[in-house]
């Protein structure tokens, strides 16, 4: 749970002044540092970023009375505005998950090399 929250928190802070892909940085680092297995690393990143994007977009959705989510849903022919929020969380999650996974494998490869060397 702690890696998930750390990822969400760090990605949020970085996102305030860096472009959207900055979410990969905390994911990569934490995946490398705290990742125990491939599956769990992916889950950390996925859950962390999905949670962050879900909360952020929900917060905006409510504050905006759903005006924009309804329009975006219609723009992409989605039957329900909630799907806009879910897709946002899903895409963020996949980006986050792949990043932690990469971090995990990266450290593993590096570590193995060090052991072998």
């Amino acid at each position, binding site marked *: 749970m702690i890696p998930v929250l750390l990822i969400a928190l760090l990605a949020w802070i970085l996102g305030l002044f860096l*472009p959207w892909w900055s979410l990969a940085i905390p994911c990569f680092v934490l995946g490398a540092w705290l990742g125990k297995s491939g599956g769990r690393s992916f889950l950390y990143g996925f859950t962390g970023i999905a949670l962050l994007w879900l909360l952020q977009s929900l917060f905006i959705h409510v504050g905006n009375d759903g005006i924009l*989510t309804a*329009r975006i849903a219609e723009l992409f022919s989605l039957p329900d505005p909630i799907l806009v929020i879910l897709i946002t969380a899903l895409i963020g999650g996949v980006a986050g998950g792949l990043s932690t996974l990469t971090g995990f494998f990266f450290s593993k490869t590096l570590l193995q090399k060090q052991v072998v060397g």
Partner: protein
Amino acid sequence: MASLSATIVLFIVLSISIGPAPPLGPFLNPNTGFWANAVTGDSKSQTISLDSGELRDSVRVYFDEYQIPHIFAQNDHDLYFAQGYVTARDRLWQMEFQTYAAAGRLSEFLGPRTVPYDRYQRRIGMGFAAEQALKGINKNENTREAVEAYAAGVNAWIKQLGPEDYPLEYKIMNFEPGKWTPLRSALLFKNMTYTLAGRNSDLRMSNTRAYLGDSFISEVMDLDPSWNDPTIPSGTPWNFEPLEAQKPNSNFQPSTAQDLQPFQPDPMNGSNNWAVSGSKTKSGYPILANDPHLNMTLPSIWYTLQLHSPSVNAMGVSLPGAPSVIIGFNEDIAWGTTNVGADVWDWYEIEFRDSTLAEYRYDGEWRDTEKRIEEIKVKGSETITDTVFYTHHGPVVQDFSGESMRSGIPKLHAMRWIAYEESNEVNYFLKINRAENYEDYRNALRDFKSPAQNWVFADQKDIALTVTGQYPLKWENQGRFISDGSDPLYDWQGWVPFEQIPSVKNPGRGFVSSANQDPTAPDYPYYLDDDFAPFERGKRINDRLAAMDEITGEDMRKLQLDNYSYHAAKVLPMMLETLDTDTLTGTGKESVRLLAEWNYHNDSSEIAPSIFKYWWDALYREIWSDEYNSVEAGMSWPERDQVAYLVLNRPELSWYDNRHTDEKETLEMLINRAFYRAMNNLKEEYGTMGDNWQWGNVSDTDIGHLAQLPGFGKEDLFTGGGAESVNAIRGSHGPSWRMVVELGPEIKAYGLYPGGQSGNPGSPFYDNMIDDWNAGELYPLWFIKNETVESDSVTYSLTIE
């Protein structure tokens, strides 16, 4: 390492746009993506510091409850700078899109699919026309400074934007704001000329004459029903010696009637305006009203604001992209407009020496054409170079190269258009914003050349209306058909002098009005066009105004909402009489009952207007389809009032007979047949008769997004009115701004438009006025005479330094 590659690939895929979809990463992320455009709180007052040298003094902008900015500047430079800055803040994408579209530059960010559109814009000479406008603007110090200050204001706004701040449409279409230039303001004005004076029917009329003959032209198309009540009251004397246009001896016969798609003319951009004199009002001071009918879009074409500096205090609607107030009022006067629709776009058949198009015949000699190279940049593709040949008339829009661009454009013909003239409409607006009386109004009008407008005026004592514009000096019917490009007698032979254009001041009847009808009675010595809007709206307004007394602003608001259909009142009784009702049952019988009881008002909850419209449309087709569909060429169809006149007065015409049948059809048969067709069509489209047949459903009013993005418009409004009603809502066309101004020592004004001040689809102020507009409400406009810092009406303010 497969994982690293997969991750990199994913981030790249999320960062690029695939097909028309925006790149998903930047678009979906909550910090900088579309989510950043969702407005989640009230705007707060703030102070904005710009680079030194941008402003000469500080500017205060107060926003009221409708998000209308009231701009207070210490000099005119700062005023127009702030207008540009504030307008861009609310409407940047619209300004960009409209001018890119006008200039034929959409392909720069939309890619190859808009190349044909861009090519057309280039070939009718929009860029050339805008350069002419900028030439005019730059010759005058005041107008040059105004457009330059405005551009600097827009650019100051753009400069401080980060990608997360870009208006939503930039994120969807994946492009960035470009620099604003005075040329783009010029483009906007020439684009208005295209919107309002960008029509012609030369080729269609020539085809009509070729296929249906001179007798058809004289019997149907020349018809000018005597119901028309012209803008300038009949009997107004013309106290001047008119200039003479020299006429050729014989009619030019165009060499080819072209193969073209059948063409149904678009509804014209009609409008209403009027002013009543103090003798007819309760207050004793004039009242002015205006509702320009245009294509209604989101964001709206209009942006309301107040402009205050030591030299001016004006309020009303502006065009995003241009300095000053376009329709509005100041402390002394009010002004408004409707379109004139004069024929200022003509086609000339050109005889070229050879296929290089380098030379053409004129007045017995060979003349050189000029080349203008148009470069169309295309996103994701090579730049297209297009060479356009210009004769002294204007560009050859359609040459050998490329596919046929639009119907109504003949091949190898040159186009002559008023927009190619150097002009400075900005100066008119700067002057009318500052006008204090009738003399100032007349003086301002001299600068207004196109698109020709009926500018209505009122101050505390005078009312006036001028059919303003630069009109080519033409002989009768010149340019109605395709003209001979080699004969100087077909050239525009000069201009109607300003003092001789139709105008009226304080007429005896106590009001002036216009609704795009014929500007004058037939005794006006100049030919302006053969074809103006049908009489119905103008006649209804004049009837009502003549009958009214002790008029209030509220009466004027109601008249703007008048749904009466003169057209139905004229023809429906005769159609009902002719209809054989004995054999009718069920829906048919009920329909006749509803029609017989109907008061001819196109009210949204009535069913009768729907039945009448379907019946009339079916009758129109029954009468003309056989003639018009028998040839492939695009031809001009008769106007609604011409057909109404024929149906009522010429029951024996041979045109009623369907030329494809042996049977001899009569008008009576067509009226009966049309009724059955109307019943069937209504049932097919709306099911069995019931609330779904109500006019509000059938009239089908949508206010779409400017770039037609799904979900960004407001669909299926339940509206009343109609094409022939004063409340001229039809489809997506309608009153794009309604304004009533009560003149007097303390001027009072009301207005609103079907949209919202914000151009941001994520803002509650994007479409907030539409429902009130549809309900016929007008908002009282808060007009500040002296800058007051503390006020309940201010929701927030900006200080720009």
